[in-house]
């Protein structure tokens, strides 16, 4: 292999590597999303966030409008504080309701925003006043069992 062929092979290798990187970034990592755009952060407090994770999607009407930026616990009220990074392209009224939902029966959890009707909009640092916690399967089951146990004595005979 002479020098120019060798250089060509090296160039092809480097080009292929950079192409692979671009492929990973664009197609797999979805860097083209609005993550690079401007956004504002709002705060939502939940009694229980269940299995919600950082970077979980925030959806409104099923469309992703933002991501969960951080999750922490308020040491005084023992509420979970989720900070949501919402794309500036979308505005939500002050009485928006934040609900923790599950995609599918056993899918990942995300935050659903139900817009309200007040003409004032949430801005950077605002707090979502109305929230609904995650449904915890164990609690549902125990509630169901308790109800069953409570109604059985009356139903026998």
């Amino acid at each position, binding site marked *: 292999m002479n020098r120019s062929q060798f250089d060509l092979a090296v160039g092809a*290798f*480097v080009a*292929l*590597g*950079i*192409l*692979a*990187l671009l*492929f*990973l*970034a664009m*197609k*797999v*990592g*979805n*860097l083209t999303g609005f993550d690079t755009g401007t956004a504002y952060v709002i705060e939502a407090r939940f009694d229980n966030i269940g299995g919600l*994770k*950082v*970077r979980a*999607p925030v959806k409104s009407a099923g469309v992703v409008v933002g991501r969960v930026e951080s999750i922490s616990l308020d040491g005084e009220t023992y509420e979970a504080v989720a900070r949501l990074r919402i794309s500036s392209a979308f505005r939500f009224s002050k009485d928006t309701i934040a609900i923790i939902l599950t995609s599918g029966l056993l899918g*990942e959890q995300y935050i659903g925003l139900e817009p309200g009707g007040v003409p004032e909009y949430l801005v950077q640092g605002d707090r979502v006043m109305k929230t609904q916690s995650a449904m915890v399967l164990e609690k549902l089951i125990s509630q169901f069992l308790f109800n069953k146990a409570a109604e059985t004595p009356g139903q026998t005979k």
Partner: protein
Amino acid sequence: MAVDPIARVIAPRFMAAVFSVPLLAALFSAAGVGGAWIIGVKLIGIDDGAFWSQMQASVDVRIDIVNGILKSVVFGVAVGLISVFEGYFAVPTAEGVSTATTRTVVTSSLTVLLLDLVLTVMMFRGLN
């Protein structure tokens, strides 16, 4: 000999390792995704859109891809250093070269294993 072996032989090989290992890592990651696509979409018949949306939902650029490339850079430096070191101090006989090769492979694998552990702990300490 008037040729400086460090500048003429060692440095180019070391630099080649440092640059090519991250490129190879990116190439292999892409090949892995491509292979999964061929098996999933072409052979098993998963919907193409569902495949990519699930892929994008579970892969994070900074956590997964950037950290992977970062690791490969560190591995490239480590393996490159070990290889040129063993090569430079190899006994110049047939036996010496084979011993040096074996030592390089063994030391590199163990170093990569150890560095991988350390890097993983450093990168994922703050998560979850």
